[in-house]
């Protein structure tokens, strides 16, 4: 049997008395850390996230939080210099402050929008898949109908209806989350359909566990792999959509900014007479670098969590 009663042989690795289980998650971590590109990209993502979030933290001195809205007459459209690292825009605002601040907005929208879609989508999909039969059919047809609606139309509708009353970012989370959860629900349901046939689910029913208990304790934890992967791939998608909306002038409004709205302003400043390239390059570069890193982190996670890729 498995009792470790014998004394450690010389040369053998000392067996710890304390038995600590190595969970599937720890194994996945180990595999992820071996993927160098993914680790580098994770570092870049975390760094850019942390830097961008600094001006948004509560308790920051107003000199930092308001740097991006302070206009300086006579300093408009200056190129990058030691004083203004990324140059200034047409109102003389420091572009570095605006890129950092706008990045924070982009990150917030992307994360919160994804979280909204994650919570709604996974719960919805898990219930549909587990309950099965007619309920599943009904719930998924509803998803299909929502899928059929043109995404931009819905988002523009929400944005224009809610926009006037409030300047907050809540409508944009709603709009993005509302669309993203559909795919999440489909992925979760597909996984649940195969999971619920597993004997440990039958075992839980034999024990007499309630349906919510089975779903939240036995089904959803086993969905984590695909869900984490899809989430990390959804975050850049949401970020891109937010930028797109802002670029169209439907997202973040002045005086606030995000990477998308900065790029939009930068493009308008490009003219045949003078090209203020830094106003396009820096926000777009920051966005591209972050999206690129997030996608590689997602790929790395997918490889790490795929049980077939185990060594």
């Amino acid at each position, binding site marked *: 049997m498995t009792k470790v009663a014998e004394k450690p042989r010389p040369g053998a690795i000392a067996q710890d008395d304390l*038995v600590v*289980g190595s969970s599937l998650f720890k194994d996945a971590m180990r595999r992820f850390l071996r993927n160098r590109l993914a680790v580098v990209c994770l570092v870049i993502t975390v760094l850019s996230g942390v830097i961008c979030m600094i001006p948004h933290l509560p308790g920051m001195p107003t000199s930092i939080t308001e740097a991006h809205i302070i206009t300086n007459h006579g300093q408009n459209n200056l190129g990058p210099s030691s004083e203004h690292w990324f140059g200034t825009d047409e109102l003389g605002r420091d572009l570095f402050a605006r890129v950092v601040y706008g990045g924070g907005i982009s990150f917030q929208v992307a994360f919160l929008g994804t979280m909204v879609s994650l919570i709604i989508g996974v719960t919805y999909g898990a219930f549909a898949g587990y309950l099965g039969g*007619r309920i599943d059919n009904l719930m998924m047809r509803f998803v299909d109908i929502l899928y059929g609606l043109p995404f931009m139309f819905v988002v523009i509708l929400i944005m224009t209806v809610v926009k006037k009353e409030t300047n907050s970012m809540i409508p944009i989370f709603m709009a993005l989350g509302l669309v993203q959860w559909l795919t999440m629900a489909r992925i979760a349901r597909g996984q649940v359909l195969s999971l619920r046939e597993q004997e*440990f689910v039958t075992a839980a029913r034999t*024990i*007499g566990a309630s349906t919510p208990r089975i779903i939240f304790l036995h089904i959803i934890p*086993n969905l984590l792999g695909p869900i984490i992967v899809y989430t990390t791939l959804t975050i850049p998608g949401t970020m891109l959509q937010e930028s797109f909306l802002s670029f169209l002038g439907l997202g973040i409004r002045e005086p606030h900014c995000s990477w998308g709205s900065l790029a939009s302003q930068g493009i308008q400043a490009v003219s045949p007479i003078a090209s203020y390239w830094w106003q396009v390059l820096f926000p777009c570069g920051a966005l591209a670098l972050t999206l690129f890193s997030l996608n590689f982190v997602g790929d790395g996670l997918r490889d790490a969590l795929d049980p077939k890729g185990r060594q």
Partner: protein
Amino acid sequence: MSKTTSSGKVLLEVKNLRVRFPVQGGIMMRKVAEVKAVDGVSFTVKARETLGLVGESGCGKSTTGKALINLLRPTVPGVILEGQVIYHAPDGPVDLLALSNSQMRRYRSLIQMIFQDPYSSLNPRLTVGKIIEEPLLVHTNMLAPERNKKVKELLVRVGLGGEQAARYPHEFSGGQRQRIGIARALATNPEIIIADEPVSALDVSIQAQVINLMQELQDEFGIAYVFIAHDLSVVEHIADRIAVMYLGNVVELGTSDHVYFEPQHPYSRALLSAVPMPDPDRSRPNRIVLEGDVPTPMAKPSGCGFRTRCPIAEASCAKDIPALRQVKGRMVACPLTEKMSKLLKSS
């Protein structure tokens, strides 16, 4: 190993159990046919005894096991369950099939199940301790320290160390995982355990260990087993009585010595003549090779389900489904057992 004497009271009475699954087709998903997975099965399980349920794949043994424990209804839409499964619970008899899910919950602690696949029957995200603890959480008011103590006791009882509770299922071998599954089934002190092919996924040496463990636990806790298997030599070893199933019907039911050593129904004879004998000196019964395939349970033959492959079938076999009758100390669902004996003697 001593087999328990089956003189105890009747725990479970299965009366004319029928399970039919709808087959849906077409755009409207209308019911186009039915699979008669279990077609009128009756047997009893006594306290502290082991009833073996044998038969080839698709004969309805696992479905019967699941129906006994009321696991079919919510998962399979449109499933039709008929008949009665009377459980003589400590507080009076109750028909399990008539219970709603919430009514059934209080009996779940008394009727447990051991599963076939030790890999898929344990949740990979939970530690072994949490897996074994779950029935205690659902059915008892024990506090955390009591539960931990009980989990450790159970682990030790099934032959794993109590310190293994912190490990995850994927760190164990198949046999060890099956022991964990047994510990989970034991947690609430059940009266009946339905073992659905508990050893068929294990290697032979491990099979013997798990079977022996199950027998020890039976002696210690007085559990009755419904042991579903297709490996006849395993069933013969553990079971007090054996029910042989074919195409959703019980064709022979008797003590394991009777059924194993002198089967009477033509199907059980064929099944048992196919069991490999490791002893070359032992006289080998005449090998009966069945022709053809098992008919689909969607279109069962009229009358006796076995008549299409039976070596002694007569025209009368197509008329009625043969009832179980007493032959040489056991129940057999065939009126022509004499003819079979003669046929075997002459060959």
